[in-house]
């Protein structure tokens, strides 16, 4: 292998792929536009995390979108009832790739204290979840920690996995 070939392969192809991956992941993780599924009391903590004392905007995730088509991140905040499950799935399907999901609170993660006939026992029965944020409800700090964990996860992904 000549020097030119080696340089071309490492710097141009492998290097380019790495650089592009780095740049795209950087862009993705620092502009997570969430759609908030405000299903119960967790929603209040989710809103609080956007307020000045916590300021989710520091991490680029403050722009809550009213439409799933403009969102990258779905924050399921609260109790998902069986009746709501098809709606949650539908909203998730409407989101364009790349998309991630945070299950916020005990209810979204496992049904929480509602071990009942009417409540879905964890939103992961219906949609894939990337990060679980425990708590009942989680504090805004916990949600922000969850978003930071998700950012780490995005950094480790290859951008082409989510197209």
């Amino acid at each position: 292998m000549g020097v030119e070939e080696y340089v071309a392969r490492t710097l141009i192809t492998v290097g380019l792929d790495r650089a592009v991956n780095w740049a795209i992941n950087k862009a993705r993780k620092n502009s997570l536009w969430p759609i908030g599924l405000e299903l119960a009391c967790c929603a209040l903590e989710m809103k609080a995390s956007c307020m000045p004392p916590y300021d989710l905007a520091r991490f680029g995730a403050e722009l809550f979108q009213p439409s799933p088509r403009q969102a990258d991140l779905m924050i399921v905040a609260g109790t998902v009832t069986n009746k709501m499950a098809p709606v949650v799935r539908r909203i998730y399907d409407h989101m364009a790739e790349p998309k991630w999901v945070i299950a916020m609170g005990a209810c979204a993660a496992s049904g929480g204290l509602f071990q009942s006939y009417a409540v879905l026992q964890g939103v992961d029965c219906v949609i894939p979840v990337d990060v679980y944020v425990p708590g009942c409800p989680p504090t805004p700090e916990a949600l922000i920690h969850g978003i930071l964990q998700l950012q780490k996860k995005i950094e480790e992904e290859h951008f082409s996995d989510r197209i």
Partner: protein
Amino acid sequence: MMMPVSQGNNHPAVHKLARTFGRSVIEAACSSGQTILTIGRNDIGLVCRFLRDDHDLRYDHLSDLCGVDYQDKKPTRFEVVYQLYSSMLGDRLCIRVGVAGGDRVPTVTDVWPAADWLERECWEMFGIYFDRHPDVRRLLTLDEYGGFPLRKDFPLRGTVEIVEVAEGGVTWRPRS
């Protein structure tokens, strides 16, 4: 200022109903200052219309309608409870109707349209069927959900759980 309405057997509705419907008024009781009437199942529609239209009573607001499951504690297993309010008298009236399993209760949607969702919920949760209800469908659970969840013999966590939701609909499996 509204005068307080006398309660229990002296409640004005008791006399009027007894005069008009006779034996359909099974019992009049008073609890915590509220009059509770027990009415025969078949006449409930007429009684409610009378209570709404009578010039001295005017129970124009149905504030709640719910079911109760007494299981073995009473000879008639179920009960439907109507909470009425008269904005003219400023008085609340509670009406109870005993319903055995499989019995049908006349609807009051034609008296108070507010009864529509309340009766749907009552049917969905207890399986008490309301005759001539315009739109008997499940209200709070999914359409294909089986069973009546608020009956005492229904398991707390239900009999089925959701496995998957896709375009085609919801997939259920029996709960272990």
